[in-house]
């Protein structure tokens, strides 16, 4: 979690867990999606919140299990004492076929890290920036490019890559290997085009940033597309599948179609979640 917090130009974002909860709900995993999810019994859905519950147990590093217990019951130093006294023996090693009650014979869907591009560029930075996007096929421009600081494309790519690797892919590496089904990472939903809509539905933590100005749509779009490229490359590196946003939810310019907006500034709604669900069913089942 702290990794994601540290990403931000938005160092001002105080409550990282809030972001996770919102991410979880609004992508439609909880709430209206629960019934649908039950139909996909062979799939484990995973984001930065559930990561807290599952991850400590994965990878045969069972001292993490004790750390989790310790943290829950506030039993400081319990695990270190057990280790020192040699009480942790092989018999405590979790069975490789199940973790936290979940069978390994399942598919695995990661939805972590869906906000990095927004944290980076939903709101204007106090040092306004732009960057060249070589794959920009959309006729979206903004007029003050020359007055902005240019960040080289490769620099932003490296920044996104570095943080996604640390915050998502390295922690999940063992998990990808644990599950015997397919491992999938979902790309986040595309950006909302309307600055007015974003302004009216701004989440509280974005309001705390020094700049109250919303970034130009074209810049948001480029950041999103670059982030999806990074996720795609990392998925290839870790041998898992990267699922892009469902085509039906994306307008020809590349933004989220209005029907799929949630009542906040970054997430998609449950209707979008249903499209993702269908997309997943098509791929996994």
């Amino acid at each position, binding site marked *: 979690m702290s990794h994601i917090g540290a990403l*931000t130009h938005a160092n001002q974002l105080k409550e990282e867990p809030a972001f996770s909860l919102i991410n979880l709900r609004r992508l439609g995993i909880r709430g209206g999606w629960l019934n649908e999810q039950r139909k996909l019994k062979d799939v484990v859905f995973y984001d930065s919140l559930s990561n807290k519950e599952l991850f400590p147990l994965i990878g045969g590093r069972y001292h993490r299990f004790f750390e989790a217990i310790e943290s829950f019951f506030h039993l400081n130093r319990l695990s270190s004492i057990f280790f020192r006294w040699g009480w942790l023996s092989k018999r405590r090693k979790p069975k490789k076929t199940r973790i936290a009650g979940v069978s390994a014979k399942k598919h695995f869907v990661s939805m972590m890290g869906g906000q990095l591009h927004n944290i980076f560029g939903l709101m204007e930075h106090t*040092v306004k920036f732009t960057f060249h996007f070589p794959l920009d096929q959309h006729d979206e421009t903004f007029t003050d490019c020359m007055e902005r600081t*240019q*960040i080289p494309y*490769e620099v932003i790519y490296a*920044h996104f890559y570095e943080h996604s690797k640390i915050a998502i892919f390295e922690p999940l590496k063992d998990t990808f290997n644990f599950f015997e089904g397919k491992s999938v990472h979902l790309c986040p939903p595309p950006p909302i085009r309307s600055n007015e809509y974003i302004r009216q539905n701004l989440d509280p933590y974005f309001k705390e940033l020094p700049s109250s100005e919303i970034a130009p749509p074209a810049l948001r779009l480029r950041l999103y597309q670059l982030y999806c490229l990074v996720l795609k490359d990392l998925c290839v590196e870790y041998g898992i599948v990267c699922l892009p946003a469902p085509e039906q939810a994306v307008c020809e310019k590349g933004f989220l179609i209005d029907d799929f907006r949630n009542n906040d500034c970054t997430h998609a709604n449950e209707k979008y979640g249903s499209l993702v669900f269908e997309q997943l069913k098509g791929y996994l089942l």
Partner: protein
Amino acid sequence: MKFSNPYLRKPNHQFWKKAFGRGGESLLDPVVSTSFKIENTDRVVTAGSCFAQHVARYLTNAGFNHFVTEKGHPAISKKVLREFNYGIFAARYGNLYTSRQLLQFLKSVYGDFKPLDDAWKGKAERWIDPFRPNIQPGGFVSKQELLQDRRQMLGFAREALSNAQVFVFTLGLTECWLDKRDGSTYPLAPGVSGGSFDDEIHEFKNLSVDDIVGEMKESIQLLREVNPELKVILTVSPVPLNATALDQHVWVSTTYSKAVLRVAAEQICKEFDRIDYFPSYEIITAPHHKSAYYGPDFREIQPQGVEHVMRIFLKHYGQGDIQEGVPEEIQDSRENDKQTQKIEGMLEVLCDEESIEQ
């Protein structure tokens, strides 16, 4: 008739036996006097060859005001900014190995230099800046991005040089490659890290003492036109040539090159006020150290060597709250091998010349 000779009653530093004192080679201090001091608030800008990067880093660690105007965007992590060579020098201008490169750079910053060939095609549809070929790992994604980045860098460099109080320049090489058509000078031969070599267009030049003195004079005049109070420190890089374009041994080319640079530096210092020669070259290459300041490849400078140079630098130029002595990281490195490796990583420098072998 009196018994006399011109060496009588001369100070110790003029005599080999008395000059080094007792107690070990680390006491070697060939600096006799300096023409100015550096306050810890003075804005210090550095440029030059790979060795200048060491100087810049130590100035920062020692509490000098190493003046960096192009720091990279604050939203980007420090690790990534370092990888992309932000903060090494005042702006991302990369290594300036020769006096000709420095002059060309200053003409780009302040004036009229517009190269005919301003971008090279690299691998995988990427673009390489001919004047700082290794500044952007992976290259630029378009020519437009490259040119905009260069414009931006020149703006930051202008800000730095116009407001600097001290300019430290390390002369690195005499050998260079030019474009015959407009005289553009490159830090690397075309074709090594981008572009392609064409002997109809490109030519080799080994700068002479006169070339260097003339170009350095013009550079200093250009700098002082916009910044009349600027103080300058010249050094000669002790790093041997990675490769020579001449049909002779690389060591012979190295000694020629360093001798020319050393003579040129001496002449320049004699002609201008407030310009000092600082003998980092002499400290590293002194026979007392038995080449111990060179790494296993006999080329890279070891952290202890850089530390020695900078200790002497601080001793003579530092004042106020500047911390004299060894930076903490170096002290730790002596005690812990793992830490030494870390320091070596820290001291890893951007060296265009190494591309020649790749």
